[in-house]
């Protein structure tokens, strides 16, 4: 697969501070890369470098094969970019602003109007086109920023927190839109909303302190959670002690966590030692001892769990055990 977006050893230093540290990335057509990381991790800095706005201290980035520093104009033609915070010319009306961007993109006359029309329809902007951008609400501003990035139907989209400030309907629309345009494009989005990654991204990259810690499918990342394939059961309190001991005795169980579940019920969670399925083993044990189990389920592990563990200073390394 041809990488539409590629970065090799991308590094940015601000004086002594290393904001982005040797990041390698490749995003091909049909992929949506979700960029995750705590505040100040270097997500925006990385995106600014790929968009050709910031010059990397080291390393290189390219868009559709054009190096963003050596060959900036062709690279930018293939890029739709929504900078962090969606900065816009506040004194222009939304319509005049889109017309300006279309003109700068070489879209004039009928093609320009058609492009603006489609972008306006996709971002649902028709009602505010005549309004100065300064007077728009935050969500509408973000949508103007999005419309601007989509205008020329570019093969590469880099969107820094595109759904920040959108209402739930618009977030939904936005995700639907990304899924719709995805097949022909390489899309990089940054977000703090982890469910969004599950919803639209084909890959998730976690970055912290400027370093890329993980780059995998969201499902695979979630499987790095210690809770992945863990089994939770809720049972009568009188069985709890014995059950916890027997579960902990199983070969494939790492540890057993215990939490309250009600007045005379207990909730036990058996964590899988190798991340593999342990439900069958637990099931046999339940039958053998005749425990009264009210609820039994397999956990999948959640992305935010993995995110927290990877990006907190005292978090553990990815993997199991």
């Amino acid at each position: 697969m041809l990488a539409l977006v590629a970065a090799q050893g991308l590094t940015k230093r601000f004086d002594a501070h290393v904001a982005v540290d040797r990041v390698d990335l490749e995003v091909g057509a049909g992929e949506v890369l979700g960029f995750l990381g705590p505040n100040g991790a270097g997500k925006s800095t990385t995106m600014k470098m790929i968009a050709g706005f910031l010059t990397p201290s080291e390393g290189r980035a390219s868009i559709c094969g054009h190096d963003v520093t050596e060959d900036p104009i062709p690279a930018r033609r293939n890029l739709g970019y929504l900078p962090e915070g969606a900065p816009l010319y506040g004194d222009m009306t939304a319509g005049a602003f889109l017309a300006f961007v279309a003109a700068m993109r070489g879209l004039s006359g009928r093609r320009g109007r058609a492009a603006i029309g489609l972008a306006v329809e996709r971002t649902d902007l028709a009602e505010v086109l005549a309004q100065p951008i300064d007077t728009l609400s935050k969500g509408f501003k973000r949508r103007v920023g999005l419309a601007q990035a989509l205008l020329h139907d570019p093969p590469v989209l880099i969107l820094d927190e595109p759904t920040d400030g959108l209402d739930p309907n618009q977030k939904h629309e936005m995700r639907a839109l990304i899924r719709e345009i995805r097949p022909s494009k390489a899309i990089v989005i940054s977000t703090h909303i982890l469910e969004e990654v599950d919803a639209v991204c084909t890959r998730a990259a976690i970055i912290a302190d400027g370093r890329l810690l993980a780059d995998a499918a969201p499902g695979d990342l979630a499987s790095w959670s210690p809770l992945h394939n863990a089994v939770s059961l809720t049972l009568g309190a009188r069985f709890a002690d014995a059950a916890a001991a027997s579960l902990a005795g199983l070969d494939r169980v790492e540890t057993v966590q215990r939490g309250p579940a009600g007045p005379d019920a207990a909730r036990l969670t058996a964590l899988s030692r190798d991340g593999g399925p342990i439900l069958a083993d637990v099931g046999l044990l339940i039958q053998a001892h005749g425990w009264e189990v009210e609820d039994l389920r397999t956990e999948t592990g959640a992305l935010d769990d993995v995110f927290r563990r990877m990006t907190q200073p005292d978090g553990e390394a990815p993997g199991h055990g």
Partner: protein
Amino acid sequence: MASVAHVFRREFAGYFITPVAYVFIVIFLALAAALTFYVGAFFERGRADLLSFFQWHPWIYLFFMPAISMRLWAEERKTGTIELFLTLPVSTAAAVVGKFLAAWVFAGLALALTFPIWLTVNYLGEPDNGVVVASYIGSFLMAGAYLAIGSCLSALTRNQVIAFVLTVTVCFLFNVMGAGAVQPVLGDAVPAELLETLSSFSLLSHFNNIVKGVIDLRDLAYYALTIGVWLAAAAITVDLKKAD
């Protein structure tokens, strides 16, 4: 280049979105007229020429041109729109030239609106209109030089007030450099050749040449070079400072 035209159009229209531009032009015209008729003693001189009008331009421009140029880049940097703007497929050079031209044409418009003064002098007497045309050209070039300096200094900061003050200062220095005004101050401390050289870089001395009615190629080349050099410096500054 098409993108220069698009940048120009957006920037130029931007001057008229708020009433500030109109206020600016009115104040400029009022000041030009006041200086010409009262301070410049236009009527008392009893001469059918516009010297008492044009002699003020370098000094009026000293405050008006930096006011036009201060926002060119400082505002883009302050609001962050520079990130959007410079990731569009436009070269920094085209962006700098487009913005500069918008400022220059705006200044030209203000200058053109002084035409009633020209009409007045034609009504009252028979001026040498060749000299007047030359003076207008010289004045316009002078404005261009100030605005080119202002473009560069506007890219240096996100603060428009700082850009304004810096531009006034630098333009002032370029004006008086080697001019008659500093000669008495420096006295004999500086060799005459140095003063001569300095004065050949002075915006004012070239302006004074043109206002006499002689458009010398050297004076034109001087303005073209000044504008070109400062715009090149502006492009470099924009590239260096855009992401700070």
